[in-house]
């Protein structure tokens, strides 16, 4: 298998996995393949999809962001407060809040050369604490315009609820940023060869910071969506979402060593995680078993990444990628 073909194969894993899982669940529980269930899932995937797309930028730049769940909770809560103060559009405050958290992460990792895990662990703890502090120790912040927010997040217009369309547009924007804009190309370049970024005259730490800023902004948007769907800002929500977002991004073919990513494949990865969760739910399996399954999906995504890497080095004459020794 040539490297190019391997690259394409990696982005086809998630769609194939969706088909396989959907077929299995369709056999196990007849309701799964109904149109109603499909539409309901199409409305559900977007929180995870936005988090996963943000996570993809961080992973593409050879990093991780384990603070996305906490950032989504904080920005969703602040967004709910702003919405109560100035009306529903105030919910969009969540995006600059997420961007700010991403900027802190990006500065620490890019400029101050913190390891991504340490930096985002520190912000995870601090942001989690902040979310509790602004909300009076974890009280939910009910949206005054909850009915309108619910209409926007649940009533389908042409197949998707309006906020679903908005999230799809954001994912499309991420595709444009990654494929067609300089910053996206540079993020991929940084992931595959950091020295090259400096050699073409770009500033590596700024590129790295922008990857985490994008990640933070998408986490903020996910927080806004979370608030709209729940009809309240949920300061203690979001634990475990960082894991699901990493799993979705990696199932979606994002190379853990950085440098390769495809937004639509990541969307498929997020869909796959949702298919597994919904399918197990419809089959009457305990939600705790579903949690075990998500853990298995995370491990499987890691194994898939390692497996494809081994295939690449075995079937091509290229030397193994720098930094790995097998």
């Amino acid at each position, binding site marked *: 298998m040539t490297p190019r073909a391997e690259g394409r194969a990696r982005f086809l894993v998630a769609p194939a996995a969706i088909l396989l899982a959907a077929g299995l669940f369709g056999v196990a529980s007849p309701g799964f393949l109904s149109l109603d269930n499909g539409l309901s899932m199409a409305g559900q995937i977007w929180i995870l999809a936005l988090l996963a797309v943000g996570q993809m930028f961080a992973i593409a730049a050879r990093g991780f962001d384990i603070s996305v769940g906490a950032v989504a909770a904080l920005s969703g809560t602040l967004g709910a407060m702003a919405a109560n103060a100035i009306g529903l559009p105030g919910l969009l405050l969540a995006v600059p809040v997420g961007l700010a958290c991403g900027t802190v992460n990006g500065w620490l990792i890019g400029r101050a050369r913190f390891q991504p895990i340490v930096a985002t662990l520190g912000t995870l703890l601090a942001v989690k604490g902040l979310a509790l502090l602004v909300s009076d120790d974890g009280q939910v912040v009910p949206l005054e315009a909850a009915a309108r927010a619910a209409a926007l997040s649940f009533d389908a217009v042409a197949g998707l609820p309006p906020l679903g369309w908005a999230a799809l547009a954001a994912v499309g924007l991420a595709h444009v940023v990654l494929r067609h804009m300089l910053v996206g190309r540079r993020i991929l370049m940084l992931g595959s060869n950091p020295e090259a970024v400096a050699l073409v005259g770009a500033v590596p730490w700024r590129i790295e910071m922008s990857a985490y800023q994008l990640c933070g902004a998408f986490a903020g948007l996910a927080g806004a969506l979370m608030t709209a769907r729940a009809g309240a800002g949920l300061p203690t929500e979001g634990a475990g979402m960082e894991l699901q977002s990493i799993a979705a991004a990696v199932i979606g073919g994002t190379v853990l060593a950085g440098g390769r990513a495809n937004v639509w494949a990541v969307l498929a990865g997020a869909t796959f995680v949702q298919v597994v969760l919904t399918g197990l739910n419809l089959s009457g399996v305990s939600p705790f078993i579903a949690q075990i399954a998500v853990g*298995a999906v995370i491990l499987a995504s*890691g194994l898939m990444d390692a497996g494809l890497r081994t295939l690449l080095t075995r079937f091509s004459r290229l030397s193994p990628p720098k930094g790995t020794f097998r």
Partner: protein
Amino acid sequence: MMAKRLPGTSRPLRLSRPPAVALVCLGLFLLCCAFVPRFATFGNIENVLRVASILCVVACGQAVVILLGGIEFSFGASAALASVVTVMALPVLGPVGGLATGGASVIAIGAVNGFLVGRLALPPVIVTLGTLMMASGAAAWLVGGLPIDAPPSAAFSWPARGRVLGVPVPILAALLACAALHLMLAHGRIGRLWYHVGANPVAARLAGLDVTRITTLGYAVAGAFCAVGAIILTSRVASGQPALAPNLPFETIAACAIGGLPLSGGRGRVSQVVFGVLTVAMLNNAVVLINLPVAWQLVLLGLAVLAAVGLQKDWAVLARLARRTDR
């Protein structure tokens, strides 16, 4: 174990230099004594040490993983699984057997993590987050999501409430754990291998070391430390809790980072872990005594991690600059 030295290189016995974090820890202690009401009382200090002791035992395990260049997120979930397994096994196997079964499950999870990291070269974050999800799902599933009470017995509550010669058992366990880790790291063969693998796994492999086995053993030993902590915790809450200690991995990683262990692996001493743990425990205790909302514990912990790592980076930069001007 006697280490053989080349002739002429023997050093007189002396205490090694205390780590930089010791100063921070001492400063924080004095600050707390001066400004935090009711901090400097015998009861409170014992309380801080009691809390710190559990954290210390588990942080010893986290330190082994960090030495290996890894990171372990599954501790909290596997401790919860251990507590559930222990209480379920209690009627069948008795207190000792129950606690042993619970502990064994933590060690098994650690070994699996180590194998996946060492053999398949998967990133430790992915592996341990995956087993975190699986272990916490399994713990909740076994008891249907609700805590189950353990029948009270003297033997079962001994790990948390017993005393040996007046010293509470958890504090004794922490001292033993530190001593064991120190023996392994400073005088044992396995400790040296961990340092080698953590500093440069490629070089270790090229030098003929069995990186898979060393890593698996390291994560299993880390699991054993966590198992001791889980046993004490289970005994303290006297029940099987599916959400026993969700912040345990964060607090232990924070303690190691504050202590000055580089998360890139290959370096670190037990004394650093101890002072890191004491710093975290004092911060948490002070937040409660000053009557701040408990959420400040998280905020301060996060800021302390960032500050500690940032300061170490500054020290490294300064040291490099100093060397450069020497030349």
